[in-house]
């Protein structure tokens, strides 16, 4: 943690979707800070508003009340400094692996030489060498997810918002991807806010775990995870880990 400055600040966020007379209250009074280089995990019951919260944090959805401050400025629109990994891998089916990964660079108008070099790095980083020209339909779920992560990293955003990036994967692939993500995060020095529905994944990866209540969601627990890094899977068998996971589970069940 090189810096203590908050890169992202959520100020009393409310989101209500139009629905009937009262509307569907999804987020209620959510406030928290994310520091630079922090890895924050958000867990909560299904359908509570995790995706909605992430969309607000990324500027894709305007909150009904409250504000998001990103790098000291109120966020009214999406920023390129914020990268997104969506709940489904969300690749363009007509683009090959490289072409999907380089999409952000194409849009920002980088030079072809730079794009080529950066793509090679990214392919290497996420371990997809040999699949550069494959189409999404020919990739496994885990590979597609890695393409999505590489794409989000392409233009080196300061903040990475990830919506259950491993949601579609089996337990084994999931564990491996988790440790790979830690490696990528450490290498890329970015800040991560990640939604997950796995408690142990959250505790293993994060510096902090935020637990949301059922809809309308508010933060019921903000837990600091002070486990040493680099972390490995063995950590999950330790007493400290078990205690932290139990706290998170207790908070979820109390809602």
């Amino acid at each position, binding site marked *: 943690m090189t810096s203590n400055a908050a890169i992202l600040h959520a100020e009393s966020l409310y989101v209500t979707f139009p629905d009937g007379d009262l509307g569907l209250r999804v987020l209620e009074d959510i406030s928290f800070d994310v520091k630079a280089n922090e890895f924050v995990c958000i867990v909560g019951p299904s359908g509570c508003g995790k995706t909605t919260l992430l*969309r607000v944090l*990324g*500027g*894709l959805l305007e909150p009904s009340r409250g504000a998001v401050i990103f790098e000291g400025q109120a966020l009214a*629109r*999406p*920023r*390129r400094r*914020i*990268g*997104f990994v*969506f*709940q*489904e891998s*969300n690749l*363009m*089916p*007509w*683009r*090959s692996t*490289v*072409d999907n990964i*380089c*999409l*952000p660079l*194409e*849009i*920002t108008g980088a030079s*072809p030489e730079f*794009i*080529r070099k950066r*793509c090679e790095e990214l392919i290497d980083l996420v371990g997809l060498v040999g699949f*550069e*020209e*494959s*189409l999404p*339909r*020919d990739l496994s779920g885990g590979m597609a997810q890695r393409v999505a992560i590489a794409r989000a990293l392409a*233009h080196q955003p300061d903040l990475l918002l990830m919506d259950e990036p491993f949601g579609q994967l089996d337990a084994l692939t999931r564990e491996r991807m988790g440790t790979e993500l830690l490696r990528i995060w450490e290498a890329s020095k970015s800040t991560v806010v990640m939604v997950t529905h796995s408690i142990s994944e959250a505790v293993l990866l994060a510096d902090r775990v935020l637990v949301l209540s059922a809809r309308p969601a508010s933060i019921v627990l903000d837990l600091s995870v002070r486990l040493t890094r680099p972390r490995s899977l063995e950590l999950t068998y330790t007493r400290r880990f078990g205690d932290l996971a139990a706290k998170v589970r207790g908070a979820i069940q109390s809602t």
Partner: protein
Amino acid sequence: MLRGSFMAIWEHRSKSVSGARNGKRQIRYALWTIPLSILSAYLLWEAASRWSGLPAFILPAPAAVARRLWAALQDGSLLRHTSTTLAEILGGLSLGFIFATSLGYLLAKSKTVERILSPYIVASQSIPVVAIAPLLVIWFGPGRISKVMISALIVFFPILINTIVGVRSVPQDLYDLMRSLRATRWQIFTKLEIPAAMPVLLGGLKIGATLSVIGAVVGELVGADQGLGFLINVGRGVYDTTLVYVAVITLVVLALTLFTFVAALEWWFLRWREPPAGY
């Protein structure tokens, strides 16, 4: 490896050859089924003209039609009339396509435009274009323009509908992705909407290609001094049934060629799609 232009989106050199394999098998299949079906049609026709006892002005023999075809080719008239009709077809299809896709895009993107225009569009669709073809010939004269207009009108609606469906089928998450990258409207259009809507759009073009032939011929039948429809009218007027057959066969070949061309376009653009199950 990286290409700037959006046309390159579809260019891919996947190691997976399932699509190509599937295509090759279909081509090999077609290599003997098509000649076989042409041959059997010929035999049927020959048999019918010999033994049915129908007079030649109702069912001429294949050989007589072939002779008439040869004559029409020799004096250049068939080529002249065919190129007239082809120009009308392509003109109508392009015009209809341009207008239908532009309007369809607007309708798909704007609720207001849709609310204002859709009653008129639905109402106009209940007017059979064939019935107002004479009116169009009166308005635009007996030349090519009226045929282009009729053809454009006929292809308009199916292409419009397919454009709307295609643009609406673009996944919201991909829009969010483009938005999160601060893509410009033009980038969203070229890098997302066009390729994502392409499958449905090409389906519309395929229907339109067939309809555009009908439109042009209907126009020529109503009133023209050139074109294959005009040739049919002439043949009918002088009881030259062989000439009618020549014109009809030419039209069929024209329509099939056009359809095959669009189908090839579709195959080329949509190689990224899953090959259909069952092959």
